[in-house]
């Protein structure tokens, strides 16, 4: 099973983000999601929202994120996927954003506020630039909607484990197994589960049902320590690396 960690670009700063991406890659990440900080992230819980707020407080700019990713993507094996609000993409210019994302070395994008219905034009543009557009399916998505969404999906399918925002949860929704089973019959794409996953036992529980796990808040939370004390950077990066390794091992064994 693939292990896919998530971090927000620019928290606490872009040089640290670059080091963190390398640390995660070295710890066994099969793919890394890079969140573009956004002022109004309605799909995110308090931990990722706070991470975005910290990055924006330091005025992280889109242009600089692309510069950082351009250099890091050449140095690591793990593909990078951007997690970015359509508000940002639209404001920047849809064509320009997709071209710059491609040039920076992103393998794909997840656009959480661009549901399948609205995605057809954008999906075509992404395909033209050979970028994957990862689509999300929620526990509240009825099967006929899922079928429509999967039409535009490439790369893998992001299966939202719980109705709600991102963030650590003890238990996953009971209907998750059903949802995965049903999706398996509808698509040949790998199924990755995210939202609420933070521990190796949750990963073990998904074995045989999902092809990947996405862990965001549990990792991002460790960055909170850096906000008040930047001197801890080396220690925090080490902590994140060893935590990521635990999760990667759980996924890979």
């Amino acid at each position, binding site marked *: 099973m693939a292990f896919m960690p998530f971090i927000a670009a620019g928290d606490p700063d872009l040089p640290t983000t670059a080091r963190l991406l390398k640390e995660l890659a070295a710890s066994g990440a099969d793919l890394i999601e890079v969140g573009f900080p956004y002022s109004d992230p309605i799909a995110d819980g308090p931990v990722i*929202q706070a991470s975005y707020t910290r990055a924006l407080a330091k005025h992280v700019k889109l242009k600089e994120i692309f510069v950082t990713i351009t250099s890091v993507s050449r140095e690591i094996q793990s593909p990078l996927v951007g997690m970015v609000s359509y*508000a940002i993409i639209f404001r*920047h210019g849809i064509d320009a954003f997709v071209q710059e994302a491609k040039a920076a070395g992103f393998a794909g994008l997840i656009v959480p506020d661009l*549901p399948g219905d609205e995605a057809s034009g954008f999906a075509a543009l992404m395909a033209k630039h050979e970028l994957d557009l990862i689509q*999300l399916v929620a526990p*509240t*998505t009825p099967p006929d909607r899922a079928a429509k969404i999967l039409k535009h999906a490439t790369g893998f399918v992001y299966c939202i484990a719980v*109705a709600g925002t991102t963030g650590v949860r003890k238990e996953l929704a009971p209907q998750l197994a059903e949802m995965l089973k049903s999706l398996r019959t509808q698509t040949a794409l790998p199924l990755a589960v995210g939202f609420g996953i933070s521990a190796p036992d949750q990963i073990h529980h998904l074995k045989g049902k999902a092809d990947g796990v996405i862990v965001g808040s549990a990792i991002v939370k460790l960055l909170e320590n850096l906000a008040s004390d930047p001197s801890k950077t080396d220690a925090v990066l080490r902590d994140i690396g060893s935590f990521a390794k635990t999760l990667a091992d759980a996924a890979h064994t």
Partner: protein
Amino acid sequence: MSVALPDTPFSGHATSRVPDAEGRFGEFGRRFVPETLMHALEELTVEYAKAKADPSFQKQLDGLLHTFVGRPNPLYFAERLTHECGGAQIYFKREDLNHTGAHKINNTIGQTLLTLRMGKKRVIAETGAGQHGVATATACARFGLPCVVYMGEEDIRRQKLNVFIMRTMGAEVRPVTSGSRTLRDAINEAMRDWMASVEDTHYILGSVVGPHPFPMIVRDFQSVIGKEARAQCLEATGRLPDEVVACVGGGSNSAGMFYPFVDDTTVELTGVEAGGRGPKAGDHASTLTFGNKGILHGTYSYVLQDEDGQTADVHSISAGLDYPGVGPEHAYWKDTGRVRYVNIGDMRALHTVEHVARTEGILPALESSHAIAYALERAKQRKPSDIIVVCLSGRGDKDVNEVARLTGQEL
């Protein structure tokens, strides 16, 4: 201080037959929300269409608007202000006389009936100044529905009276501590709640913003304002007004006021935004005047944001206009030229409160004062036979602390 007045003749082509099935007002609107909410929005669209076509739903709504809200409220001829301006006749549509003191309750009664119809057991809402929160808490109390209102910590501090009223009505007021701690963050927090509670909870959005079908539903429920005003103007004067004026924050009272006039092409429509301290970014909330096309809170409209798409800080003396977005139908009306959007600054709105109070014996809300300030200026340029109807969207009691503070008086 001068008002930015239009010098081009009115020429707009827009239709009232919007939105389409995908929620498009021209190019604007639609749905830009996480997948988790999509099913609920589809369900709401279907249920609302059924309710709209159901005479018993309309009858129940009309009955409540009459006996609980106090509709129809009057169209009032502001005789002394008209005389003073020496131009067009000025009329006020008196939404301030509604139960709870503003137009917001027109929508919350309608959406509460929808909640019951859908069999949902709980209501959430966002509020800025607290008027929508109070109107939601009131409607929920009337029907015994549990209600949670999200409100920015900063707004809670500024609007203690409304917080007290909401709690007295049995609502839980949850402070929002993220971001700017104002309306925008309260909407984010309400959406997050809804993502997790969507199966048994309805979100009563308070303005013509957000994903489809909210801009349509809120406009429809608020259209009672314009329908009444249109009929009352015909009855009182024998003809339609020459110009209709309303303030625009998110744009609910103005959408409700303008919509029934959209196809009356002889009637000029003017929306008045909050000019704040001036045109510098961060000093105003004039989204249609200074904003660009973009996405915020699930809809595509005009928005105040930086070049990276980050939502900008806004300012207005009036907490009800202090929003960096605007309803997608307003964006459509702006681009088709059907409605003209101007702005009025803090100080002018502030002085208009006192001016209207002393001249007409009516204390308007700071929001409504923006619209009145423009109308008074505009009336001077028009003939005495012309008619201007202004939406007096709410009463000013909630603002007395702020007005006293800003004018150096003690309460």
